[in-house]
């Protein structure tokens, strides 16, 4: 059974209040059934092998029909659509997504020995008991997202304090590139200004990072000396840009591309300086190069690999990308390794390992990030490259959860945003004791946030033994599409110039079903009904 059900108030075996309803197999997957539990009509749903129970009475129509609704997924939340007026009810909380006033009660449901059990007492919406103290370390976008989700599940239960290293509220780091390029205003980038916290009675300690965790006493201490006790601790320290171990990285005009401060520095530099050198030809480096070019600087990208974005792209796609950037006036030195950043106080250029020197008055290092784990490691939490978490986002300390770029889950660390939002939601559900499934990283997809370039990458794109690839090339249209298959299953996709079908490929990667029968049509986009057969 799902390990999610470990609520302290839950009995260890079916006992009082729990009613056996039927066998799991009695309910078809992705459908519901109505049950009579302790004098209430309860709608029981089976979604794959998990079960959910919410009230069967549709508040909008007054009819007992919820069990007959269609089960689906709306923005990552498992919901049922009322068969009457089609409102969506969360299967986890019973909340009506369209109108919270119409929410239905939620019940605990579980499967044991192939039988479905329901606890007859609806999960209370509010608890009067003492609030649980939740401390969040980090105020990045994943931390804020986790809080948002948690408040949706349990608006009142926690007493929350957030410590952040940056001076403002939370902002969407993904939008830094459009901000730099001038495609988005600052107002759209900041998602959680300070009043967002105050209105929710969350204590925000901005610009005051935690320096110490005392797990024994369950307390944390901030740089300013503030000590706060916790019942639950959420580590969301994110990652930090890697700084190359070469001379000159501390010179003026050498920056990373990580936070708002970096963007501000770049925007300032673009007004006063002429030439920028970006070290790193990955996603972030290219976005930085594009942004700086758009702000009028001449830009050279130094990249150590033979082709750009080698983690997401294969060589031909990277070649098209390079051509496109070159047409926009960005120069490349690659493969080339930066050996030294030149300058006395302020940067004047970069010397490459082959001896060449590039002149420049701004150097942006975008050579990757590493999880920020010093704090967790110092607290004695198990760490490898990141803070180790299980499928519930719990660390080896049962009071401490971790989410975001600082974690390592089943051997993987995370840099792209989609799986992190998933982590946030699942972690919030566990914190709210509403969780029903563990975290399973979905295939990652990435797209380059550079105007006029359609680039999409999903899954594993590096050719490996046993991988087969399907390639479509249309140089004149600047189109390159590649799918990687392994044993007739889609493993990865690189789409350049024409990203249609991207979502479909992500689905196929997720499903992991054989695509042998549509192999020859895969790359041309999602199938439509054909008019007549082939010859």
């Amino acid at each position, binding site marked *: 059974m799902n390990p999610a059900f470990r609520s302290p108030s839950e009995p260890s075996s079916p006992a009082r209040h729990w009613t056996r309803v039927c066998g799991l197999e009695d309910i078809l997957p992705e459908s519901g059934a109505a049950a009579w539990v302790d004098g209430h009509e309860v709608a029981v749903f089976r979604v794959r092998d998990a079960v959910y129970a919410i009230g069967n009475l549709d508040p909008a129509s007054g009819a007992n029909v919820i069990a007959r609704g269609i089960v689906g997924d709306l923005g990552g939340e498992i919901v049922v659509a009322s068969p009457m007026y089609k409102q969506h009810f969360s299967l986890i909380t019973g909340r009506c997504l369209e109108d919270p006033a119409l929410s239905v009660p939620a019940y605990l449901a579980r499967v044991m020995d192939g039988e479905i059990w329901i606890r007859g007492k609806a999960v209370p919406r509010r608890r009067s008991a003492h609030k649980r103290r939740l401390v969040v370390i980090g105020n990045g976008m994943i931390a804020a997202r986790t809080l948002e989700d948690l408040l949706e599940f349990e608006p009142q239960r926690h007493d929350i304090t957030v410590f952040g290293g940056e001076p403002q509220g939370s902002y969407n780091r993904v939008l830094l590139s459009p901000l730099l390029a001038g495609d988005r205003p600052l107002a759209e980038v900041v998602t959680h200004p300070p009043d967002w916290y105050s209105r929710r009675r969350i204590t925000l300690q901005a610009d005051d990072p935690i320096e110490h965790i005392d797990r024994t006493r369950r307390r944390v201490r901030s740089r300013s000396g503030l000590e706060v006790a916790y019942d639950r601790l959420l580590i969301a320290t994110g990652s930090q840009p890697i700084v190359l171990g070469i001379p000159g990285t501390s010179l003026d005009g050498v920056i990373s591309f990580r936070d708002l401060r970096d963007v501000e520095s770049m925007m300032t530099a673009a007004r006063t300086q002429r030439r920028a050198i970006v070290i790193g030809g990955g996603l972030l480096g290219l976005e930085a190069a594009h942004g700086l070019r758009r702000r009028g600087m001449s830009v050279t990208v130094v990249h150590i690999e033979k082709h750009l974005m080698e983690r997401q792209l294969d060589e031909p796609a990277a070649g098209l990308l390079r051509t496109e950037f070159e047409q926009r006036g960005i120069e490349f030195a690659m493969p080339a390794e930066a050996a030294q950043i030149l300058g006395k106080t302020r940067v004047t250029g970069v010397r490459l390992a082959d001896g060449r020197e590039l002149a420049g008055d701004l150097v942006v290092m975008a050579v990757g990030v590493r999880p920020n784990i010093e704090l967790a490691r110092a607290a004695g939490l198990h760490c490898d490259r990141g803070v180790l978490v299980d499928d519930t986002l719990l660390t080896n300390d049962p009071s401490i959860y971790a989410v975001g770029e600082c974690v390592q889950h089943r051997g993987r660390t995370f840099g792209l945003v989609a799986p992190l939002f998933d982590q946030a939601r699942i972690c919030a559900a566990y914190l709210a004791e509403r969780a029903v499934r563990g975290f399973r990283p979905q295939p990652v997809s990435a797209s380059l946030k550079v105007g006029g370039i359609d680039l999409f990458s999903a899954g594993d794109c590096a050719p490996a033994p046993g991988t*087969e690839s399907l390639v*479509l*090339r249309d140089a004149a*249209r600047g189109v390159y599409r590649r799918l990687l298959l392994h044993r007739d299953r889609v493993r990865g996709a690189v789409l350049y110039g024409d990203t249609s079908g991207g979502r479909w490929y992500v689905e196929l990667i997720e499903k992991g079903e054989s695509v042998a029968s549509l192999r020859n049509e895969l790359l041309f986009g999602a199938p439509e009904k054909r*008019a*007549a*057969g082939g010859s």
Partner: protein
Amino acid sequence: MTAAETRTTCPYCGVGCGILAKVEDGAVRVRGDPLHPANRGALCSKGSALGETVGLEGRLLRPRVLGEEVGWDAALDVVARRFRRAIDEHGPDSVAFYVSGQLLTEDYYVANKLMKGFIGSANIDTNSRLCMASAVAAHKRAFGEDLVPTSYEDLDLADLIVLVGSNTAWCHPVIYRRILEAKERRPSLRLVVIDPRRTPTCDLADLHLPLRAGTDVLLFNGLLSWLANHGAADREFLDRHTRNGARTLLVADNTAGEVGAAARGCGLDAGALRLFYRWFTHTERVVTLFSQGVNQSGAGTDKANSIINVHLLTGRIGRAGMGPFSMTGQPNAMGGREVGGLANSLAAHMELENAEHRRLVREFWKSPRMAERPGLKAVELFEAVHRGRIKALWIMATNPVVSLPNADRAREALRRCEFVAVSDVVAQTDTAALAHVLLPAAAWGEKDGTVTNSDRHISRQRCFLPAAGEAKPDWWIICRVAERMGFSHGFGYRGPAEIFDEHVRLSAEGNGSSRAFDVGGLAALGEPAYARLEPVQWPVPAAGRRGTQRLFAGGRFYHPDGRARLVPTIPRAPRFALDDEYPLILNTGRIRDQWHTMTRTGRSPSLSSHFPEPFVDMHRADARHFGVVGGALVRVVTRWGRMTARLRISGEIARGALFAPIHWSDSTSSSARVGALVSPSVDPLSGEPEFKATPARIEPCVVNWYGFALARGPLALEGLSYWACAESGAFRRYEIAGRRVPGHWPGWARSLLRAGRQADWIDYEDAHAGTYRAAALRDGRLESCLFVGPGPDLPSRSWPASLFDRTSLTADERLGLLASRPSAPDAGPLVCACFGVGRYSIESAIAEGAGDLQSIGRRLKAGTNCGSCLPEIRRIIAEPIATEP
């Protein structure tokens, strides 16, 4: 602008349809001539597409000597000098003409006159030898002269029509349609098809007898015996007008007197055979129409005589709605026979062996040197060329390297020959490739003269186009060579009218009703009357000046005693028997939309899409047994040669047999010249080769990939294991396959499609599965595309083909092109060539409720022009409705 229509005739099969042709907006438009008695306005798919075949592309426009273009004088001098020298050094029999049923009667006449009356040899033979020489020999044996007694009108009047060895629906579609119309008018009309194959002709037959190949004589001997034993013999007719009846019956009784045994011998159900015999016995008006299935056999003459025998026994000849009816394959096979253009004839139905005839012709021609004995027949002729006995050979309007049996030997013979001249309309044929001198002949539409069709109608072919380049009429070329050879008199004609007049006068010369071929009534027409000449059925004797619909009306035949002969025919098997190494019997023939070696029909897009590549057809169970798969490539091997083609399992072929079409040459496919496989055995009397019974085996042709390409320009075909090319208008369609898997598909494909590095190139590659697709564009316009896969199941060709009409492709179309995913419904494989209707369109119409031919015709027009696709549409209607797989 509209021009007046010119009345002319179709240059294809022996039906001899009248055509109204005109040039409109630079294009040639044709329609059936409603006043012509042969077709009364109808045309088949080939005839309807004539306009697509008259373009100048590929035409031979100027004389060439050893590949160099020269003037006419130079070319004619070379031909005349080489022939003169060979004759002077080695005698008249060291030279030969190999001519064609495509020639007009006037061309034929002067060729025959030059060879037999001036050079003094009878070494002039024709590709008609491959077509109906057996019918000629049988007619001579039975009637004393080469005479087809019947008329097309007899098909309208008959109560029973027996089609023997004829896929009339495909090879003579207008006749087939005429039969169907008669059957619609009079449902009591019965149609029996005797053919080893269940051809589309069988679809509307009341009875199909799928006899074992080569057992026709047994079947008709059985019929003869049955008729005699069931009181159907016309004793009075036999006694007054025939000889040899008793002897012939004795042979028939002895060989096939017992129906059960005859049925077993023919591989037929005895009940079905009896039913046919009974129908024949009780039907007075019966026409037995026979064609190449009878003629092209080592026993072809006997087969034809066994058919004629039953008509003589019952007296069903020379009267309305009855008689044996030989359908010729070529437009002017009959005309060739009339002028004597066969090595064993003289002229105007006179015989070489007959001293009186020789004298008569010599005096008429004022001949300096007459041939004294028969010349070499086609197969012997090329054997003599191979042995070096023929020093100079002139081939006119035919492609023997493709069409002769044992054709590889024929090709070798031409290679060895000291001097080969070829007159043709097309520059590149497998035969022209071996010529020393190429002479550009005027093509259909550019030349003037007469032709004779299967039912003795002499019709005018008229010119409505200017000659292409320096092309000249064949008669002109022959006469100029004759003059240069020193024959100053006898060839100074001013035009075809004068030649025709001489031919007509010769037919009447010393005739006195001793020869049926007498067209003296057409003498002294003069230019204007010749120009206006209406179709007329010979004989046209001077007295009366009227045509003759039916011969032998008074029971008068043309043996000296005026009686017909029944000919005892003893069944005999093909000369080469099947054995363990060659266990299958290879049959050959035509397909619906192609003519001979495709030098003309192959240029029509609509005609080329019915069967765009060579195939071999066989029974499903045999395919399993021999380990070959339908749709895949196979190799057919005989003792004489081999070919590679696509395996088709149509359900038309009986077990133990193979069928391959005759049309593909080295110009259109890598290795599909069926002629190369055919045994050189010939009928001992007619010299006609056995095209339909060569022992063969079949084996898989192992290739590692299959593909097709559509391209505006020619492909670089070197290194392919298989290719076949079909014209499709704006582009050519290539079916290809290979053993060697290219290491780098894109590079290989670029060189195949001749696309440079700068080409706008789209491609799709699934290297692991062996799938590669590519397209080259120029300025947004599709230039070529290529689809390769590991097996023969490739995407539909019709969708990418449809994109060749666009001046530029949209982004969606560029993507859809390689997806081969049509935006509009795919019409599917072509069924109706006249209106370009595909199979899927017909299926959808059926699914939408069109349940019969009429409603499909109303909806899609399919089958409403020539009607030759009607059997196929009928089959589609009869099929169970396909469900999604």
